[in-house]
């Protein structure tokens, strides 16, 4: 069966510091991968998605970036965090080629102070 991991679970970082959040998927090959941010416990905002290694699409202009160095690894980064980057970050995967349901990781709660 497929599983998705995210770490760390919680993170407190000062403004201006760098960020690296990691997501890995097991039990599937060539998944589509997604990063979402959720503010105030409500709707999810899609930040980035990837359909393959090195292929990243950005949905929202911001100071975040994403990379996919391996088939089942997705990384969210920032060089300098802003207060507005605080939130709940969720990674998700879906099957390549047509299945639309996405499955989410446990999330990282980021607080920028």
């Amino acid at each position, binding site marked *: 069966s497929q599983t998705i991991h995210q770490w760390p679970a919680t993170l407190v970082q000062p403004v201006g510091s760098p960020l690296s959040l990691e997501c890995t998927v097991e039990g599937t090959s060539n998944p*589509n991968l997604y990063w979402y941010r959720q503010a105030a*416990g*409500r*709707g*999810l*905002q*899609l930040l980035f*998605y990837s*359909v393959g290694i090195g292929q990243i699409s950005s*949905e929202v202009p911001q100071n975040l970036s994403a990379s996919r160095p391996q088939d089942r690894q997705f990384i969210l980064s920032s060089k300098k965090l802003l207060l507005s980057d605080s939130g709940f970050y*969720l990674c998700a995967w*879906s099957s390549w080629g047509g299945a*639309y*349901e*996405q*499955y*989410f*990781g*446990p*999330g990282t709660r980021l607080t920028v102070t």
Partner: protein
Amino acid sequence: EDKVVQSPLSLVVHEGDTVTLNCSYEVTNFRSLLWYKQEKKAPTFLFMLTSSGIEKKSGRLSSILDKKELFSILNITATQTGDSAVYLCAVVGTSGSRLTFGEGTQLTVNP
């Protein structure tokens, strides 16, 4: 731009009540509508709907899609305190695998 509106935003009921959550959408080249339940952390997948009028059912939860009127409902019968969660609706349109989410309905079931 695809859009999803959920109502109500918040709902408080007593155990045993039946609830109906609403989701309306505007999307180019509709492909599917999905429902998720989110408790403390990751949203968990409930249903995917692609055809009008066909009810999907899982235990006390059921959902149906109306592609003519562009909405879906999620019904929960005989609610339990464990049903307390945020219920999220999302649609897939032209973009293929990308989901556009609504703001969610916060359901609280009191004993």
